[in-house]
């Protein structure tokens, strides 16, 4: 089968599954009378958007601002920390133990503390997201440096580069492909941190709107906002993937695929039995000898 045709086929299946899910949703809400408070119907959701419309742009902007600023600061700090840990052994030995102790602490657990310390403005949220992102990326950057092929570093030194030059021209480009996964995870985490932080304090934003609507048992509105968060998160992820493709054109992407790999010569039960009997017969003749 050609690649195009199999592509069309898989797309068709995806569409089919989507339609099925939508059909079940409609069935549950319109036919079987599941209450809107448990599961809102598609029309409820549309309704919810209309009701939310006046404040929605403001909320989206507020959440977007907090998340992106937090993510950017966190990514910058994390990458820098990782790089410095890779660059300087003494920095690693001093900072490393503290990182090890603080890293396992769930960032979410710090939300109340952050609010006490920094108030309920944008500040604690940004800091929270930055902290969560930087602790993920710091460790990942350092690990990526530790696992990079030594030969490139040796070659660079041997060609006359200084340590700083080796970091700029060899280490950083070399680790980028290995960091993309971590950056994507960190971006997804930053949305979660945003929701949590908004649940607890701030006066604007999607998460804040969500908690208010939940208090009034407005499930359609809650679900409507969840959908907006999904779109935002997917959007950020897509942007990162585009950057990834640009930054890693040089890598030899392995297209690992299990398609079309078949193994021949697996023993059937019959053959196994035959083998056993042959062995038995062989032993017997040996014994007789």
């Amino acid at each position, binding site marked *: 089968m050609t690649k195009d045709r199999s592509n069309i086929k898989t797309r068709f299946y995806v569409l089919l599954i989507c339609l099925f899910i939508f059909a079940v949703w409609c069935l549950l809400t319109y036919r079987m009378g599941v209450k809107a408070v448990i599961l809102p119907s598609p029309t409820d959701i549309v309704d919810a958007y209309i009701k939310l419309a006046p404040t929605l742009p403001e909320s989206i902007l507020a959440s977007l601002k907090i998340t992106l600023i937090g993510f950017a600061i966190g990514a910058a700090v994390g990458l820098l920390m990782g790089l410095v840990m890779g660059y300087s052994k003494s920095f690693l030995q001093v900072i490393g133990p503290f990182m090890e102790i603080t890293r396992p602490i769930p960032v979410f657990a710090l939300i109340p503390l952050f609010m006490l310390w920094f108030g309920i403005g944008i500040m604690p949220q940004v800091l929270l997201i930055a902290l969560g992102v930087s602790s993920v990326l710091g460790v990942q950057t350092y690990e990526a440096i530790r696992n990079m092929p030594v*030969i*490139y570093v*040796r*070659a*660079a*030194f*041997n*060609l*006359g*580069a*200084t340590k700083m*030059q080796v970091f700029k*021209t*060899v280490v950083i*480009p*070399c680790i980028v492909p290995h960091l993309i996964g971590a950056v994507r995870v960190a971006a997804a985490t930053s949305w979660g941190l945003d929701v949590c932080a908004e649940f607890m304090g701030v006066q604007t934003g999607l998460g804040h709107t969500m908690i208010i609507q939940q208090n009034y048992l407005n499930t359609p509105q809650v679900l409507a906002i969840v959908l907006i968060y999904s779109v935002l998160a997917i959007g950020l992820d897509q942007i990162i993937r585009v950057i990834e493709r640009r930054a890693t*054109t*040089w*890598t*030899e992407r392995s297209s690992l695929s299990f398609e079309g790999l078949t193994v021949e010569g697996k023993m059937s039960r019959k053959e196994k039995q035959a083998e056993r009997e042959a062995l038995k017969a062989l032993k017997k003749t040996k014994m007789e000898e």
Partner: protein
Amino acid sequence: MIEFSNVSFGYPSKKGLARIFENLNFTIQDNEFFCLIGPSGCGKTTLLRNVAGFEHPTEGVILNNGKPIEGIDYKRAMVFQDDAVFPWMTVYKNVEYGLKVRGVPEDIRKEKAGYYIRLVGLEGYENALPKELSGGMRKRVDLARVLANEPDVLLMDEPFGALDAMTKESLQEKLVQIWNESKRTIFFITHDIEEALFLGDRVGLLHRLSDGGELTFYDIPFARPRDIYLKQEPEFQIMRRDLTEKFHKCGNRG
């Protein structure tokens, strides 16, 4: 001139020092093409890395033009066995790398990088990425990159070991041609006796320490310039046979 006096090397291990080679005394002359062969585990790569300055002798000293080798220097350039070409840089960027990090101005960089790219036969591939090149072509990039720095000493650690026979032969020919045109000291490590005989002025055979750790030398009498048909000559075959025998006697258990 590289002088080895009483050079020993060992890695620290749980059971004390894991000794690799001991008390090596010899000299590589200026502009000599010296090939070192030996069974795997005899320490030939380690010895080369000591000359490059990646590692330091546990005892004894290696002198380069009378001065002890203390660190890495682009004047003693290493061509590695594995692929060391930077995959994120184009061929041109790779070749000019050494010049660039050393602060050579751009116009000179351009000229030199261009010259060495032509020398190894890669013109037209300046903007190609390493992933678009074959293994042999990547080795050419590596060679051009090292040569662009115009080092005094070339240290080559089985550079053609991973290539197929045809590619290997054409690169061997290229290397002797380059060396004929601009003489410099080459310290070449291989486990391929034919390669050593074809390339070198002199072959050193290093035994494993467990087999005595002896280092013996054989002058190679063949006239230069050499071409690959030399390998078919009877004198070459005789010498190859002779060395093969010695190689196996020294305990090449594979």
